[in-house]
């Protein structure tokens, strides 16, 4: 299968520090790839480079072999990307349901003309409810997000990302801040979505869940590629263990 | 439903205001800038008008009825003076309107009074378009252009200074003075070396003063009000520029001397209030004003005082308070007032002598008079 998403020679510098040095990787259609590595390895920076939030020193990023390095964020997203944020950023002036409803209406805000002509929000309401149920936070639908705990907001991020019907789902520590029972339930949901054909790239520190649901691992350590492949073999490799546990 | 409720409240509130009712006094309307940057001139205008009404009522009022003054604040803002004018006409039922304000608000109010066929007297606003609003609009002071021309004669002929620098305040007052000055400058042999402009809000003039010092003129024709001219003159003198400074009625008042201090000595202005005048109307006004207001009389208060006096005299002559008759009486009036003899031409403008005053030992004193008829002739149409 051809690579649906590929990133080659990604180098990012902030001031003097080189956050990423010559990193390359690929994801196949429907594959569940997990990015792991110690804090500060550059995982989030890599994700942000793919979505265009961070401007790399140099990189070549392609979706279905189509170069997107020059495109602004919103154009890249429209090509089928979706991103959840490591630090949750819901729309504070809206309720849980409205956050997902807005995402679900992505076709209706594609351009100004459409956004003026389209008035009704009922179909998006139905879609949004489905996504809320998928991550089982439907019972909080009319609550303002400002009153919601982290666990709910983490799952809201996932529901909202799914609502724009992406081809590639980029998850940035979706399980962080959840207790073990919540984490495993959300991990199952994500696994289920991936099995329905959604290509998924996940950054996560909760290694037990990562090993349980990922097809492949890709390990980064202070900005450089370290290892990749089947989850079990990768975890056995000594340099991966030292990178995580420290020598 | 909500919108209907909103419109209902709007109409109710508005209708509720229109409940003026007639009574036994004769009302004269006056709009002045009581707040905002021109608040000081607003205060002087109010005192001038109140003194006039007090004097008239003490002398038996008009057509043996008491004269009542209705004063509203227009913040020297054109869009404020329209509702004010309509309120004076529609609600307070004034028979005559008087402007104690600047050119902007006076121009917009003039249109309203003209349309309502109520006579309207502009006390000291100098914009040419005011009287062009129609035959119900009169002006009891001379135009900016006329005063500018007088300034040219004062410098070119009376003081015989030829190389002149102009410092012009960038508003309609400053611009019309500059226009009049430039019109006649050549006739009096004046060469204008340079002209610098400044904004109403400026109080520090370091840059202009430095340039004027480099130009080294024989005389400076500087337009402005006391709150800009005071700081400008003291900076000019402090930087070593000793050329005489000639100003206009905007300086008129004791405040200018207080701010400029010693630097004010020798400054000459073209104005309409002669402090050393032997003419009883003027001398008596100056004395009475100081008693009422507690500070020396100034041109602004004198002009408003004149306007109110004319309105009252016109009603006496017309023997009626019908606005149309009052307008005719005003157009034919000839009266001696604190700022000179008032006679209106077809356009409602006056022909008055220009009283030049000079600051000597911290006081305004008589310097000279300009009375050439054709130089000071206001426009006819």
């Amino acid at each position, binding site marked *: 299968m051809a690579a649906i998403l590929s990133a080659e020679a990604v180098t990012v510098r902030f001031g003097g520090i080189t956050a990423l040095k010559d990193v390359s990787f690929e994801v196949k259609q429907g594959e569940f790839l997990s990015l792991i590595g110690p804090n500060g390895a550059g995982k989030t920076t890599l994700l942000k480079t793919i979505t265009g*939030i961070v401007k790399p020193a140099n990189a070549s990023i392609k979706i279905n072999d189509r170069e997107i390095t020059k495109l*602004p*964020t*919103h154009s890249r*997203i*429209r090509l089928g990307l*979706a991103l959840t944020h490591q630090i949750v*950023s*819901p*729309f*504070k*002036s809206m309720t849980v349901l409205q956050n997902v*409803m*807005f995402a679900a*209406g*992505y076709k*209706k*805000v594609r351009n*100004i003309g*459409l*956004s*003026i*002509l*389209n*008035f009704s*929000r009922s179909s998006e309401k139905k879609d949004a409810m489905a996504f809320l149920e998928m991550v089982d936070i439907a019972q909080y639908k009319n609550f303002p997000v400002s009153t919601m705990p982290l666990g709910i907001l983490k799952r809201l991020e996932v529901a909202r990302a799914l609502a724009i019907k992406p081809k590639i789902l980029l998850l940035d520590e979706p399980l962080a801040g959840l207790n073990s029972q919540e984490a495993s339930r959300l991990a199952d949901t994500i696994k289920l979505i991936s099995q329905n054909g959604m290509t998924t790239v996940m950054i996560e520190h909760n290694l037990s869940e990562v090993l349980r649901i990922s097809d492949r691992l890709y390990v980064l350590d202070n900005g450089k590629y370290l290892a990749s492949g089947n989850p079990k073999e990768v975890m056995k490799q000594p340099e991966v263990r030292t990178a995580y546990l420290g020598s | 439903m*909500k*919108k209907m409720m*909103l419109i209902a*409240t*709007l109409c109710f*509130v*508005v*209708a509720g*205001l*229109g409940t003026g009712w007639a009574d036994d006094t004769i009302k004269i309307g006056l709009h002045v800038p*009581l*707040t*905002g940057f021109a608040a000081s001139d607003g205060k002087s205008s109010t005192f001038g008008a109140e003194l006039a009404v007090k004097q008239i009522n003490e002398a038996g009022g008009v057509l043996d009825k008491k004269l009542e003054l209705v*004063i509203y*604040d227009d*913040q020297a*803002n*054109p*869009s404020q003076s*329209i*509702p004010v004018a*309509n309120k004076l*006409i*529609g*609600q307070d039922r004034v028979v005559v309107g008087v402007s104690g304000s600047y050119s*902007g608000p006076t*121009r*917009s109010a003039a*249109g*309203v009074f003209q349309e309502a066929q109520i006579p309207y007297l502009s006390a000291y606003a100098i914009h040419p*378009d005011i009287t062009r609003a129609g035959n119900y609009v009169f002006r009891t002071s001379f135009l900016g252009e006329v005063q500018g021309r007088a300034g040219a004669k004062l410098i070119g002929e009376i003081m015989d200074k030829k190389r002149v620098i102009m410092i012009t305040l960038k508003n*309609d007052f*400053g*611009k019309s003075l500059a226009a009049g000055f430039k019109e006649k400058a050549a006739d009096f042999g004046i060469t204008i070396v340079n002209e610098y402009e400044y904004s109403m809000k400026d109080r520090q003039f370091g840059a202009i003063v430095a340039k004027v010092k480099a130009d080294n003129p024989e005389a400076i024709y500087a337009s402005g009000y006391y709150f800009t001219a005071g700081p400008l003159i003291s900076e000019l003198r402090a930087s070593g520029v000793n050329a005489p400074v000639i100003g206009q009625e905007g300086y008129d008042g004791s405040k200018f001397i207080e701010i400029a201090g010693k630097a004010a000595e020798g400054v000459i202005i073209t104005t309409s209030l002669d402090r050393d005048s032997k003419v009883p109307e003027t001398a008596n006004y100056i004395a009475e004003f100081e008693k009422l207001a507690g500070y020396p009389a100034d041109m602004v208060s004198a002009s408003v005082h004149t306007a109110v006096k004319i309105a009252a005299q016109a009603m006496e002559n017309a023997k009626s308070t019908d606005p149309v008759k009052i307008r005719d009486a005003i157009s034919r009036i000839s009266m001696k007032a604190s700022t000179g003899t008032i006679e209106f031409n077809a356009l409602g403008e006056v022909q008055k002598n220009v009283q030049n005053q000079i600051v000597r030992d911290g006081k305004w004193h008589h310097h000279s008079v300009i009375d050439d008829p054709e130089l000071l002739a206001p426009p006819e149409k």
Partner: protein
Amino acid sequence: MGPYEISLATGVGIYVILAVSLNLITGYCGQISLGHAAFFGIGAYTVALLSKLGWPMYLTLAAGLSSAGIIGVIIGLTSLRVKEDFLAIVTMGVAFLFVGIVRQQEFFGGEMGISGIPSHGMTKFAYLCFVLVFAMLSILFSWYVKKAWIGFAFDAVADDEGTARTLGLDIKSYKLTAFAMGTSMAGLAGGLYAYYTRFIVPETFGFIESITILSMVAVGGIGSTFGVVFATVLLVMMPEVFRFINDYKLLLYGALLFGVMRFKPEGLSGFYTLLTGNKEK
């Protein structure tokens, strides 16, 4: 209704259009503008100049509306580079530039402004109704925009631009549209004002006017159309109702602004939500 009430109501109508137009930019799309009076001015000057050339009223108003809108979009480009308080100060700068340039050019009448603008040809009362129709239209338009998907997009931009971008929203076009809508409506209000006063000076469209309009939006409750309309009527009527206490009028106005923002920051719309219980979403 005497001439005083008519002139007052016409003034209220014009300011309602102006406040609703700023609410589109600042209230809905979250882009704070301290220079809105400049577009009020552009509309007024365009109509003044064209009407003196003999253009009919509907053409001059359309020209005023579009010229303000076009320049509004250009100014809107600044909102792509600076945000919130920086944007407020840049738009304030734009207002000073507008007044600074107009005041210097004889073409615009310079300090003397433009006078003798031809009459609208209607009776005063007919013109009042004409203005109130436009006010009603601007309220309806603003209400529709709030409820349509474009309003939803504006909410997202106002709430969190970065997140909206990661959901595929083209922030730039929505910001520029908000500016285009708001500034062209302000241009219309400017045109109507020119016919109302029939003479305009640069000073009327300066920084103080921009603050007055922003205060109407903020006191009304930013983002709430009815709160803004109610606050506009209140703030325009207040100086008239308190006309008799001349000396304290401006003090009261300053105190009201300060009081509402200090004690009820969500503005009068806070009452609206209290009355009807639903946040105006």
